[in-house]
């Protein structure tokens, strides 16, 4: 073997070892456990085939609700973060004053832990003494004051809104980088040809941003499908199971000691993520022609 072939392996061997040890091995073990009845009440692990998968996908409507909530959360927050992120990026590269300051302010929630964000918003959205309702009531808008995190109607939209607020800054930064990479010549040529803002946006900006949009969409979707902290801190899945998602169900299964079932839920989530990511990348990476 010549040196050129050896060195890449030589330098990456440590990282590969750690990756195999902490990512691949636990994932494979998790998939194996999803076919067993492993639980905290006994040291036995019996192979039970697809029983957990049957329970989740065909036997219990509650699990289907968790899957539905996860998909809904992912769709809404992905679209919201992408649209708002793009809008903010366009605004900040268009020559608005103090753009860097605005960029920093919009990005800053991204660096905060959701534990802190969640606790702050839990306080802000408190139905009795929270800032939101108190402000609405003080403006005479009592009818708009809601039990934001405690009602079936508002709990999920509230979580989605908080999550979007926290995550859109990151997407905005991605789009700013993408926008700055588009050559100005295209816009100048389009202006000479008499193109308006809309035409430039849909004929130049968005097609040229497709690689960034693809990255942002995949990031948003994988984050959305993995959501846990936002739901756990804000509502703990309530009221009832109204805001429970797959990962809160995984947590709950593990916590109860039903580890085989929790592993099966994780495996299902892994499969959904793999399939969705594959198709999104295929769909959005199609060659753009001008």
């Amino acid at each position, binding site marked *: *073997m010549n*040196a050129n072939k*050896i060195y890449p*392996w*030589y330098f990456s*061997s*440590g990282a590969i*070892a*750690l990756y195999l*040890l902490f990512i691949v091995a636990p994932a494979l073990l998790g998939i194996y456990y999803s076919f067993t*009845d492993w*639980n*905290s*009440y*006994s*040291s036995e692990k019996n192979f039970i085939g697809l029983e957990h998968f049957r329970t989740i996908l065909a036997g219990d409507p509650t699990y289907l609700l968790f899957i539905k909530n996860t998909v809904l959360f992912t769709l809404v927050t992905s679209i919201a973060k992408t649209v708002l992120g793009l809008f903010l990026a366009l605004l900040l590269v268009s020559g608005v004053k103090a753009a860097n300051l605005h960029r920093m302010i919009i990005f800053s929630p991204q660096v905060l832990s959701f534990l802190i964000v969640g606790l702050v918003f839990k306080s802000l959205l*408190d*139905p*009795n003494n929270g800032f939101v309702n108190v402000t609405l009531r003080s403006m005479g808008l009592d009818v708009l004051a809601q*039990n934001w*995190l*405690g*009602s*079936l109607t508002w709990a999920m939209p509230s979580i989605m809104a908080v999550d979007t607020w926290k995550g859109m800054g990151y997407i905005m930064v991605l789009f700013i980088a993408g926008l700055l990479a588009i050559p100005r010549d295209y816009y100048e040529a389009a202006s000479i040809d008499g193109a308006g803002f809309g035409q430039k946006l849909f004929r130049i900006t968005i097609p040229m941003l497709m690689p960034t949009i693809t990255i942002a969409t995949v990031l948003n979707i994988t984050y959305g499908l993995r959501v846990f902290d936002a739901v756990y801190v804000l509502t*703990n*899945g*309530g*009221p*009832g*199971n*109204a805001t429970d998602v797959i990962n809160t169900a995984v947590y*709950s299964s*593990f*916590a*109860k*000691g*039903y*580890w085989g079932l929790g592993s099966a839920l994780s495996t299902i989530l892994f499969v959904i993520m793999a399939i969705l990511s594959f198709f999104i990348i295929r769909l959005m990476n199609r060659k753009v022609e001008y």
Partner: protein
Amino acid sequence: MMRKRFLFSLASVLLLSTLLLAGCNSGKSTEGSGKVTLTFGTSQSGIPRTGIMQTMAKEYEQETGVKIDFQVVPDAQWRDLIKVKLASGEAPDIFNVDVDPLSMPANVRPEENAIDLTNEEFTGRMSEEILPTVSHNDKVYGVSFAPTKIWYVYYNKRIFQELGIEPPTSYAEFKAISQKIKDKDIIPFYQAPASGWYQVLPLFETGPNYEQTTAGTYEKLNNNEMKVADMTQLKTVIEQLKEFADLGYFGKDFLSNTVEAGIEAFGQEKAAMLLRVPGTEKEVSEAYPEMEDNMGFFVMPWGDNQTIGVNPGGSAAMFGNKNSKHPEEVLKFFRWITEHDHLQRVFDEGEGNLTICWPEIEPKLTQDYIDYEKNHEKGTVMQAAVKYIDPQWMDIGKDLSGMFAGAMTPDQILQNIDKRRAEQAKVLKDEKWQ
């Protein structure tokens, strides 16, 4: 030669990684100076809120050099967390678990996880009533301070007097007085679904009432000869809770209420009634002196219940981790904390319990409680007598919150309870469910 060198280097990197990782976990409960530190994991309500345990632990450290490091976790998370910690071999040296005779063996798996305390002198001094809740297969594993637990409805005497109302003895009366209180813009009954467990109490603390009305209910449930969904009285209690919620007797937007905020709401007279354990008067009047001598109590009247529900366990007991690196130090701490004077101190400087499960300590029950208990029948609460109820307490709490919000019906809640009972029976290979 090149290939050999490459393989050697790869092996070195792997070895180094393993050594580094192994190093991360060393010295977990022993400080660099050689001083022993015992970790003590507990839920918030597992130790007195007054902080007396922490204070005494500091004194113990001065006396013996053994430090106790408390890890206090919110109630709703601890039940689940300790199971995972025990299973992963990362449980603290001392850990608190809510105990009852039915679920302690499954929750703690004492033979694998807990130090055997059977031959310790102090186990012989614990009350006979509490021993079954900390024992398994004739061996004692836990140390508890908790008294047998009773939940009463505490009420504000002044508000009742001003409105000319009396403590209710039936659900109809309970509803009627709640309406009068609500008409005065006071929350009739403080409810706390955000804590996850509080709203479940009315269902199972009134268990003796079901057992009295339909004798043999507990046994049939344990033998899987009847379903929880067949308990019409239980369904009635759930429907009554829903009715209270819909009529606004728990207040507006009560779903965000926590148990901790209950004392404040009651003490500030924002709520007229509150479900609590004996000793509440002390806790409330210490924070709100104007409430002194202003509190009465009565048995919860949901489902027309008039029987006092007694839980022989239900509160936290301390266990020593069998896999601890310092089992002898754990035992020494247990011996120290159970010395008569130390027990007395835990009792006196705790948050107001009127009894403790150590007969040598004089109870502080007032004549009111003694008379009340004489005039009412007592029975064991459902979660301490019926299998697979207590372990799903938090799930039932979630279902009830869902019902208050309009997502579930009482029938669905009952069916879910049966479903989860069957799940756990299956996991535990209970022959009655095969």
